[in-house]
Structure formats: C-alpha cells, structure tokens
C-alpha cells in the first residue's frame, strides 16, 4: 500500500516537475537522472536478471550517441529516425557481445566487455574522418516535433520522462513474462534451466541485445540534449556510475535501478557544494565495497525483505 502510494506520488511529482522545480539547473539534473535511469535499467537487465556483469556498457551508450549524432549531422535524419537507428546499432553491438559471451561467463565476460569498450573508445578517438576524434561532434540538432523544437529543458524533460517510462514498461513486460522467468532461471541454476529446455545461449543473447539497445536509446537522448558528442561518452566513470546505481539500488528488481539512478544523480548534486567530485568518486568506491559486504542485493530487495518479514502473506512473484 505504502509502495503504491509512493509510486503514485512520484509519478505526479515527475509529470509536474517543471512547474515546481524553479532552478533550471535542477531540471538539468532531473533530465540526467532520467537518462541514467534508462541506463541503469538496461544494465540491470543483464546484471540483475542474467547475472552477467558488463563493464563495457558505456560502449553501447556511446555507440547510440554517436550513431544518432552522425545520422542527424551528416545525413540530416530526423531525431525520430535517428533514435531507433541508434538503438539498432547498439543492439547489433549487443548481439556481437552476446554471441561472444556464449562460451565465457563471469570474469571472462567482464574482461571481454571492457576490451570491447576499450577498442570502440580508441576507434572513436582515432577515426577522425568519421567521428572527428577527440574534438567531438558539436551542433547536434535538437528533436523537432511538427512546428516545435524541443530545445527547452521543460520540453526535453518530458521526452526523457517518456523514454524512461517506456524503458521501464519494456523491462516490466519482459521480466514478468516467460522470457523473464527463463532469464532468472538461467541465473539461479543454469543446468536445471537447460534440463527443462531453456536455451541459455538464445536468452543471454536476447538479454544482451535488448540491454544494449536500451543503452543506445539513452545515448541518443543524451546526444540530442547536450548537443555534443565526444569520446568522453566512453569514459569508464559512466560505467562505474551505472554499476553503482544497479548494485546499490538493487539488482534483479525493477524499482532498484530507478531508486539507484535517482539516488546517485541527486546525491552528487546535493553534495556538489560541499564536496569535490573526486571525493564523491572515492566515496563511490567505498560505498560499493560496503554494499557488497553488507547489502549485497541492494537497497530495494533489502527493503522488500523487511516488508516480507513484517507481513508474512504476500502474493507470488509477478
């Protein structure tokens, strides 16, 4: 009951945000939180539901950003076409990683994802003709909707909100479906899952593709918001932030990444005045270690556990 009320309140607050958020900088923070929510949800699909950690997720984010920016800048594509194209490009990369991961698990998968991200990053720096190298791509056009241009923060906030809501919906439908059950089964007990006909290869690749495509969407949204894309999108700190959001928020739940994204976008901003960015990143490292020791499944599952113990009869996993 409390959870549902909180969600409803949150939804109302989100939709009405531009009305009561006075400082445009704070609205900017909210927009970034929205983009990170999409990223966290995408990483969670892989980490929380299949149990595979991808530390190269920034690569999918970056591929989406660059694809969208390049299509808009060089071929004058509309944002509404560039976005799905970005998702497609990232999804394709996700497919490649998924197929690579067939034989590999755990630490080896992580290493392959990092290496992949490293190669993509180097390509973006060195392939000057395509990406303009370290100088980046300035002047990415904002989205247009009929006669309007979504240039203001308010307009973009609604776009990002829609994107985040859509991503959440996709995740929810997947996770509560037969496919979601297959993913969880593969994570919890792969031999058993295979013994009842669940094809591990197929579902891992599927999860990787969808996860990457969603990160690509986030990239596209980012590109048309900041209107500048450079190899900095491949910065490891983006991946780190995503990972913290998922781990601290709660892997394997849907609310977890959302909570994590909000927390770890809002927190740095709130502390911005008081604490330098390097101290925050240092704190992130410590926080990660602490969570692994004390709250390995993250905040939301821990809260769920508390609730479960308080009220023993609950409906089955939906």
């Amino acid at each position, binding site marked *: 009951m409390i959870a549902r009320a909180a969600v409803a309140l949150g939804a109302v607050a989100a939709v009405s945000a531009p009305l009561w958020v006075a400082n445009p900088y704070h609205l900017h923070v909210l927009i970034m939180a929205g983009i990170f929510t999409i990223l966290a949800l995408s990483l969670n699909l892989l980490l929380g539901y299949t149990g595979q950690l991808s530390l190269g997720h920034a690569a999918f984010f970056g591929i989406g950003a660059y694809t969208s920016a390049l299509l808009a800048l060089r071929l004058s594509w509309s944002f509404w076409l560039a976005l799905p194209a970005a998702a497609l490009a990232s999804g394709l990369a996700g497919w490649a990683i998924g197929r690579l991961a067939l034989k590999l698990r755990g*630490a080896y998968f992580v290493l392959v994802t990092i290496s992949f991200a490293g*190669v993509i990053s180097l390509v973006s*720096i060195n392939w000057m003709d395509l990406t303009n190298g370290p100088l980046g791509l300035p002047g990415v056009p904002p989205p247009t909707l009929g006669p309007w241009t979504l240039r203001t923060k308010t307009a973009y906030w609604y776009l990002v909100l829609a994107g985040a809501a859509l991503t959440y919906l996709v995740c929810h439908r997947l996770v509560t479906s037969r496919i979601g059950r297959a993913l969880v089964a593969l994570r919890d007990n792969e031999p058993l899952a295979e013994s009842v006909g669940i094809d591990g290869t197929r579902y891992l690749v599927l999860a990787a593709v969808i996860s990457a495509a969603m990160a690509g969407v986030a990239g596209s949204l980012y590109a048309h918001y900041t209107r500048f894309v450079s190899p900095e999108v491949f910065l490891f700190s983006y991946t780190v932030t995503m990972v913290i959001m998922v781990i601290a928020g709660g892997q394997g739940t849907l609310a977890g990444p959302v909570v994590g994204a909000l927390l770890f976008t809002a927190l740095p901003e709130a502390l911005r005045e008081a604490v*330098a960015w390097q101290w925050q*990143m*240092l704190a992130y*490292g410590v926080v*990660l*270690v602490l969570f*692994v020791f004390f709250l390995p499944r993250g905040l939301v599952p821990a809260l769920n556990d508390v609730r479960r113990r308080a009220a023993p009869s609950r409906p089955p996993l939906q």
Partner: protein
Amino acid sequence: MEQLLQHLVNGLVLGGTYALLGIGLTLIFGLMSVVNFAHGEFYTLGAYAAFAALALAGLPFFAALLAAIAAGALLGALCERALLRPLRGHSIDTIMLVMIGVWIAMQNAELLAWGGVARSIPHPFPTAPLTLGPLNIAPLRLFVVLTAAALIGLAWLLIQKTRLGTAMRATFQDRDTAALMGVPIGRIHTLTFAFGAALAAAAGALLGPVFLAYPSMGDLASLKAFSVVILGGLGNLAGATLGGLLLGVAEELGAGYVSSGYRDAVGFVAIILVLLFRPAGLFARAERIG
C-alpha cells in the same frame, strides 16, 4: 631492418614490465582466483611512490624502487587481510565487485593526493641514448629492462626454489592437504597477494619515469595485465613472462608499422581473440605453478 630491431628492443623494454605485471596478476587471479581489477592501481601506486621518493625526498633510484615495492606489498597485504579474507568462500563475482570498488577508491585517492596533472618522474640517468651497433637505447630504458629481468628472475626463484614458494604452490593446489601439513593458509594468501601487488608496483616504478605518472594510468595497466595472464594461461608463470614480452613487442610493432593511435588496442584485441579461440592461453602446455 634496423627499424625492426629497434622496435623489438623497445618492445622488450615494455614487455619486461608487462611481464612483471602479468606474473603478479597470474598469481592473484590464476592461483587465488581473485579477479583483481585493482591490479593497475598498485602499478599507479608504485609510480607515485617512486615520484615521492625521487622528486620529494630526493632519494637515489634504487631506494625509490624499494619504496615502491614496499608500498605495494604493504597495501596489498592490507587489502587482502581487510577485504578478501572475510570474503573467502564467497562467489567470484562478489570478490570481483569488491575489487572494482577498491579500484575506484584507489584511483580517486591518487587523484585527490596528487592532482590530475601528469607528473614527470625525475631519474638519474643521462638522456643521451647509448648506441649498441645499429640500436639506440636510452640508458633509462636499459636500466628498466635489466631491472625487470632481475625481478622476474627473483620471482621465479622465490616461487620455484624457496620454501615459501613451495608453500604457495601447495596452498593453491590443494588447500586442505597443505593446511594439514601445517602450512599457514591465511598468511600464504596475504603474502601471495602482497607479492603480486609488489610486482605491479615495481612495474609502475620502472615505467613511471619512462612515461608520465597520472592517476588513471592504472586502467590500461590492469587490462594489459589481464591480457598477459590470458595469453599465458592462468597461474602459468612462464606463460605470463612470455606473454608479457609478446604483448610488449606486439604493441611496439603495431605502433611502428600500423598505427600508433591504436597501440593500446593490441591488448584488448588479444584478450578477445584468445578468450574466443584458445581460452587456456597460447602456451597451454607449459607447466602451471598451481
């Protein structure tokens, strides 16, 4: 032809330090099964320790090297005792995440301590290159490769010939039997990790003066260390040595003949290709330590 030889020599200089990194990590990852994503941070620590010793305390070069090794060993031991021992028996993923946390924390601590501007580490060697036949080599680089070779030799001796080394190999081959034979398992774990970290720090102290010291230098070092370990096979000392040299040479040749912008990609591509096609490493038939 001279160019080729020159590249080879440069490759061996780099490769020697990569071998140090790789040997350290193959002990930690291969024997202890700890996915040490913070390995590069010990490398960075070594570089900054050397910087502090040389630029701030004005110590001679050897002392700086020893300081770096000591720093690496101490912090490594601390890490193992405080973080890894309580988690022993947990899944490899949990340990991986903890080491990622250590990675982030250490890197940003370096950033806070030393600032983001790259530091040049002073060294006592003349800058004029020595000429040996058709080859030129800077005295510093010659020193680096010789010291690396010496350290590699010492590492081999320790692992293969001393009682400590035997105890290490025993612990990771069959823990229970080793424990029954009176091997202090906990201490061996701490010492192994400390040793691996010390080697990484040594690599940092050696390469730091050749290039520059900056807080994120460890990221690439970590990945190259993993690359070497994967090339050589987990826990394979000879493999790590050869793998390190191979990587160094491949990078130099790639940078020289293909493109210098992509030199770091060699390590990445090596990881991907080896894991796909020869997951046991290139030298799979060579003897494992553990």
